[in-house]
């Protein structure tokens, strides 16, 4: 199920349906710079808004680390737990794409698909 939260005009265009169809992906979300969900698909038992808020915090701390290391941009943040993994990729204008995957999912394949998606759809609408 895909939920479009009435995203503003400049929301990055991401093919969530295609991403969600990748093996091992349980949930996909587009999160705006304020930490609010703009679009989501899957995992109805997870509160996307709460998740978006905490993952925004992870992204903010990751940006601080990247800046400290002399890089202004993040390529990807991957957090793995025993039962689930989270993959986050920045899009344009402070938006980012968040995927929840099975820990056994092929992260290499997913990140490859995400990068392709990022290149083709990272531009703002």
């Amino acid at each position: 199920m895909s939920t479009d939260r009435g995203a503003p005009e400049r929301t990055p265009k991401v093919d969530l349906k295609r991403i969600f169809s990748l093996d091992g992906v349980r949930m996909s979300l587009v999160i705006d710079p304020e930490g609010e969900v703009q679009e989501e698909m899957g995992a109805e038992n997870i509160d996307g808004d709460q998740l978006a808020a905490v993952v925004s915090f992870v992204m903010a701390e990751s940006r601080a680390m990247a800046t400290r290391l002399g890089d202004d941009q993040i390529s990807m943040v991957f957090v793995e737990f025993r039962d689930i993994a989270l993959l986050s990729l920045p899009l344009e204008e402070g938006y980012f794409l968040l995927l929840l995957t099975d820990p056994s999912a092929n992260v290499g394949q997913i990140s490859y698909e995400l990068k392709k998606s990022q290149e083709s759809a990272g531009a703002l609408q």
Partner: protein
Amino acid sequence: MMESFPPGTFIGEMQAPFKWILIHAARFQGIIRVNASDGEGYVMVRKGEPMGCMFRRKDDLLKGKEAYSHITSYPVVNLSILRYSGEEMESAARLAQSEGAEYQMAGSSPISSPLAEHAQAQGELKKERFNGQAGATAVKAGTAKIPPRKPRDGSPQVVEEKAVVLPSGLDTESLAHLLLGRMLRLPGVQAVSIFGRGSSVLSIGDVELDSLVVLAEDMLEAAKEISSVMRTGPFVHLTLQIPAGKVIIAPYFNEYLCILTGPEVNLGQIRKILKDIPSASDAGGM
């Protein structure tokens, strides 16, 4: 002071309390070079016990127990670890004895029992050969000048360091700190640090990680919050990928590892080493 000692096999460099390294060196034999604010010296170690010790403090030359007490008085010192083969250990023991640097713990074997030591070392070498690692671990015996530590990039020493294979048959906990050295030898790994409560316990590598530890801990705390909104199970690792490389944070017993790498690193190899750390996935459970 150490010019005549055998070169040994370079294991790694770290900052740590000296006694900490001994706790984790139950099967280690070799020499640990010590660099402190007021001088430098060495401690020869066999099976986690100091066997010889010397420290030059300005014009004073401390030897044996006096040197050891001085080195262990520091909360943290810079250490450079060199593993010795049986023959190298025998040669180093003779040198330490001739210099009056002998140090004997209560109940430990005297430094001058090279035959027993040699026999034991030969046994360990045979074990390593059995495991197909002889070419990687055997070091030509004999005395030579300890070469200065060279930069990792492109130096001939790098080739030798990458060939180091940890001795087999050691219990994993005793080897835990050597796993850091193993990580550091992976192509692309620049530095490894163990940290907890906002400070670095020890770090190895070419990059100073102490100042990154606070940021690493902030990332970790933020990641912990994910467990408050969904069922995740224990934390396994966090990887931040930037164009210049990666920062990997993973549980390490009751503390955490922070690994800094270049872009070319093979994450699979790092994850394999992380899995070798016992209870790594449980110790950091959030």
